[in-house]
């Protein structure tokens, strides 16, 4: 499964030593594309230390967030759902309570491991790739999808799909190639034809027009 992590610089150096010359060390999945087989420049030691610190902080905070979320869900489970049924059998809150207790424990364990664990403290644990520029680009695409999802009901699939495609062409990718633009613009009508016309899966037509 795709794991968005960057290995330690020393691990990569060791890989080169093990693989021999002419072979590339494994690269993180986000160092795409794999197509040309060239890895980006290894992060310097200073960068690695900064990444390790950030990774540690993120994990500690993540653990706390999971524990707090678990506590809130536990509160909801205990107050809104019966733990036992009328005959003392497990009620609707039985499993949620057990699961939220587990989540609290796991969240706290995650924080503890990253606070006091030897690998985390020495910076040996794999670091996360959390570059703001990358995250911003991904969020931009996600926001385009949000806009499309919000507009599907009032405008219908065809127009909402075209708006998503236009956002990709104009805002996200700034595509200038005419064939690519045509191909992208034809995507929503092609899908509409395939699903709605051929397979008779009725797609939203738009409440504004109907």
């Amino acid at each position: 499964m795709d794991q968005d992590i960057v290995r330690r610089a020393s691990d990569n150096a060791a890989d080169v030593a093990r693989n021999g010359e002419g072979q590339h060390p494994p690269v993180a999945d986000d160092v795409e594309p794999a197509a040309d087989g060239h890895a980006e420049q290894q992060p310097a030691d200073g960068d690695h230390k900064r990444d390790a610190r950030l990774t540690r902080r993120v994990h500690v905070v993540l653990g706390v967030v999971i524990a707090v979320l678990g506590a809130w869900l536990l509160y909801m489970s205990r107050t809104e759902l019966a733990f036992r049924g009328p005959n003392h059998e497990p009620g609707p809150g039985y499993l949620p309570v057990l699961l939220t207790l587990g989540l609290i424990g796991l969240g706290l364990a995650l924080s503890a491991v990253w606070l006091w664990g030897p690998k985390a403290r020495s910076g040996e644990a794999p670091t996360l790739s959390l570059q703001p520029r990358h995250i911003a680009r991904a969020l931009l695409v996600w926001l385009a999808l949000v806009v499309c999802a919000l507009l599907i009901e009032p405008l219908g699939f065809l127009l909402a799909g075209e708006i998503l495609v236009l956002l990709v062409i104009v805002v996200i990718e700034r595509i200038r190639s005419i064939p690519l633009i045509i191909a992208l613009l034809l995507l929503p009508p092609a899908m509409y034809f395939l699903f709605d016309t051929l397979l008779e899966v009725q797609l939203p037509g738009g409440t504004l027009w109907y």
Partner: protein
Amino acid sequence: MNAIDGLLHGLQSAITPTNLLWLIVGCLLGTLVGILPGLGPPATIAILLPLATGFAPATGLIMMAGIYYGAKYGGSTTSILLNIPGESSSVVTCIDGYEMAKQGRAGKALGIAAIASFVAGTIGVIGLTFLAPIAADVAVNFGPPEYSALMVFALLLVIMLAGDSMLKGFIAMFIGLFLSTIGTDLFSGEPRFTGDQIELAGGIEFIALSVGIFAVGEVLVNIEEKTEKQLFKVPNRIRDLLPSRKDITKSTPAMLQGGIVGFLIGILPGAGSTVASFVSYIIAKRTSKTPEEFGKGSIEGVAAPEAANNSETGGAMVPLLTMGIPGSGTGAVLLGALVLYGLNPGPLLFHEHADVVWPIIASMYLGNIALLVMNLPMVPLFAKLLNTPYKVLYPAILLISVVGVYSVNFSIFDVGLLVVFGLLGYVLRKLDIPPAPLVLAFVLGPIAENAIRQSLLLSDNSPVIYLQRPISATLIGLAVVLMVVLAFGRGRKVRDQVVEIDA
């Protein structure tokens, strides 16, 4: 009529030019429709059911077999090429199949998926032919305690997909289990965590969750860096697009194991192809000579779940034909089709309607053959899809995901869920939390909860019931052993890594 006579009679009835033509048409249509996310085998058969029921029973059922196998293979295609699992049983195929695609080995993955499906599908149908009566007896003895124990065992196996951090694997699994509790409680009728949203009364739609976490999450990770290049390499030579003899030899044990495991698990109603596919994946990983390749593009990691996924069909037909119990969504649609033809599945079906039952079984053999003949030549075509520039491919993936999710329930709310789970999938990847345990726990959660609560109702809240019944006691014992092995195995792995680093 004994099994061999019945099968020969069935083949005789099934092999006519008309039936073979519709079998091939069914296989092609099934693949084309099944390739669309959200349209797994049950939905594909349901969509094409009116077409098939227009024929005589034997022809219609033969066409449905073709549609079914085609749809199964179509689901595998999107899992491998685009990381979009068309249904829950394809989730495991994504793990190594998509990794292979990223390495430019999509054709080999698709090819081995077709071959494994054929081999294991044949094992499943042979099992159905000869073991149906015995297997049905065992399945009858599977009550709630046995299911509870099986699910506990299966959930422990899920953790083996956790990657390097077992803690994060458990967190993902618990989140998946919690998400599965959302919706109406089947025992009390009380809504749980629905926030008064009527759309959540039936729970979170699986397709919205899985397509969001896998497909949308993957797109968001892939587009982080702007690039003009195609995302994946695709070899130019046809020979490089198909599995080599060495690949097939390497995958043979995984295919056979997956075929047997899939059939046995398929017999249990409700366990389904999801459990079959990932149990077989775990066994393949444990027995492989190269377990370190699993999760990084292992061809055995594609062969095993695909094999189990297909032979499960043969197993699932046992309770369907002998007891009238549909073990899965597809089983339910097939049951509907049988009833439409005036057939009532049950213990007497083999005696009263042997003229139809055996052609159905024979059609499954033929469906497997058609799958191989039709789809293997199409592998290079599908693999070449990845030559499309990613800036064209990803808007298409997003739009297909929206359409696929919408088409399940015709619900805009589900599209909203897709968007939310897409972001969750991205966050999980950024935080190095494995998504597979979350999605699989989401599938297994309701089965586990229902079975546990039924068991405790039966035993007056005494957990001793699990130890009083031999099958559940054995499964609980196995779960304990697995827990010990997991802990010990992880400890040893960590120690190995420490030694390696020190060296």
